[in-house]
């Protein structure tokens, strides 16, 4: 169980999220939709524990443990994964070095390099990526599509329990979207208890991954929650009448 209880978050003393609550049961997919500037990315980053966001009130719980004050790396080690909307370039740091470090740091089992390389090779095939990708520097000179695929590659290596996808669909064509859906299906198949939060402001991705719940976030508050039937409705009416 993953729950957010009355969460309020500020950046530089500016209040962004206001008393937001959300509860996700094992296996569920929740979509968070809303217009630009409504606080969607802030929610994602706050769940991850990114330090620039100040939690002024409320509690985040995961598996019965309060994680509100844990640093990001400890949340990640507990199984929370955030796919970044705009991942930064890290010149000099090779893709494979990061993947290896992630696994060595986070996995409970002892690390076997040969087996890990084999595993990563499988992921590259799934993502239709060349082996040479591993030798490139993280996000350095990557196209928009390559950045998204690198996030997916890390997701596969991370094998999370809670997955937050922050606009993984933005700027992707239909084939790339299908690829995202394919990866998510695999991750879910491997871990049926996976709890997923999909942040988006388009419904396109939700045609491929049907959410159990849809929440509309406006001005830092959830103004409407429903099942997937809300999605086409929002497509027609937009957010204007909710503002």
């Amino acid at each position, binding site marked *: 169980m993953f729950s957010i209880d009355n969460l309020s978050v500020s950046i530089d003393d500016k209040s962004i999220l206001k008393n937001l609550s959300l509860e996700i049961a094992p296996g569920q997919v929740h979509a968070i939709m809303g217009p630009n500037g409504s606080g969607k990315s802030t929610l994602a980053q706050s769940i991850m524990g990114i330090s620039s966001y100040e939690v002024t009130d409320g509690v985040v719980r995961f598996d019965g443990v309060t994680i509100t004050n844990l640093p990001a790396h400890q949340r990640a080690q507990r199984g929370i994964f955030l796919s970044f909307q705009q991942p*930064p370039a890290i010149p000099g740091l090779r893709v494979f070095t990061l993947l290896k*470090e*992630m696994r060595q*740091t986070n996995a409970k089992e002892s690390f076997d390099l040969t087996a890990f390389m084999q595993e990563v090779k499988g992921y590259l095939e799934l993502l239709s990526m060349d082996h040479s990708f591993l030798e490139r520097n993280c996000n350095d000179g990557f196209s928009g599509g390559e950045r998204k695929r690198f996030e997916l590659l890390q997701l596969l290596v991370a094998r999370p329990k809670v997955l937050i996808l922050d606009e993984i669909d933005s700027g992707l064509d239909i084939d790339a979207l299908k690829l995202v859906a394919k990866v998510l299906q695999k991750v879910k198949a491997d871990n049926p208890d996976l709890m997923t939060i999909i942040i988006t402001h388009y419904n396109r991705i939700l045609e491929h991954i049907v959410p159990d719940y849809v929440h509309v976030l406006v001005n830092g508050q959830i103004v409407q929650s429903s099942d997937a039937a809300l999605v086409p409705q929002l497509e027609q009416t937009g957010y204007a009448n909710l503002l």
Partner: protein
Amino acid sequence: MSDISKASKYTAVYTAPKGLNVQIVRDISEQKNEPAWMASFRLKALALFEAKKMPTWGADLSELDHEDVHYYVKPVETQSKTWETVPEEIKKTFEAIGIPQAERSMLAGVGAQFESEVIYKQLKKKWADQGVIFCDMSTALKEHPELFKKYFGTVIPSHDNKFAALNSAVWSGGSFVYVPKGVKIDMPLQAYFRINSQSMGQFERTLIIAEPGSYVHYVEGCSAPVYKKNSLHSAVVELIALPGSHIRYTTIQNWSGNVYNLVTKRAVAYEDAKVEWIDGNFGSKVTMKYPCIVLKGKRAQGQVISIAVASKGQHQDAGAKIIHLAPYTTSNIVSKSLSKDGGHTSYRGLLKIAKGAHHSKSKIQCDALMFDDISQTDTYPTIDVKEQRVDIGHEASVSKVSEEQLQYLQSRGITEQAARALIVNGFIDVFVKELPMEYAVEINRLIAHEMEGSIG
């Protein structure tokens, strides 16, 4: 870096009084039973040292007090120091970077028996059979006087600069290496094998002569911090790469934060010879070091790959000098610098292509990485080309480790320290790849250790 400024007691059989004068220089020469020509060489150098002004360019040397330095300390024959008296901080650093116990003892100046002595004896026999000479400089002066005199001071004359003059006057310790024609030494010669000599002297002087077609890789220092009671380290290193030979010289030095490290290193590469300086600079208060290669013969090649790390209160003023004097010569400079907690790094480089050195090629790349806004980095490249038909490339970059990068890596389960280390290791990878395996491992550990002390 850890504070390693507290000294343990040091026992010496002869210590010159502080400051420098003719009598002290005479005493040094006498203590060493040197021939008259060396005594006279030293005295001439002393006059040059006194006549020369302090450099006004480069790092700030205004706090360096020449009167407050012991210019000669003769170490005891059997050392009385014990492991227990080694400063705690140094021990901690050794542990953190995983230096083997035997090596730790030696580095801390503790006289101890250890296995490498046995290995060294075996190697020594193998080298001697090939005609290789590897000994300390004073021994070379006694046992190989002609060879010594033929090359000593020919690459870096005493009048080259104030600190070369100083070293010429008071030099003590350092390595002498002679590799006969066609001999390729298959493993690196390491200064720390010479456990009973002053391998880490204050004014050491190293001379390497590679006869035609020979190869040698010399390694000095290691990643452990070297504590120096005296605050001035001023070495001179001369390399002579005769036609078709190849000399690689690797330095990893990590000085305590009170040291002025002012070193002159220069190589001459003759026809088809190749010289490489691999130079890693950690610690010290001020380092001024610009390994130089004079490409004197056709098709000679030179390469300088360096890293410098500057922390709080430190200025690493380092770089490279390449002088192309002959046609078809090539050079490559890669300089990486890191500054954190208010540290200051400077790249100072000279590329000179003389008239007649046509079809020369040179590539220079200098990259600086900063960890915060209070650190500083700057570059002073000088390029002086007197020939038309040449090919020169120059690239420079300055980047900063951003909060965003650290947060991204932290969100992948990596601690902030480990994240910094990952970024740095990626940045200096090109340098680490050039090191012998055991040094590469040490450097990676050292970087991780350095990052622990860093403020975010």
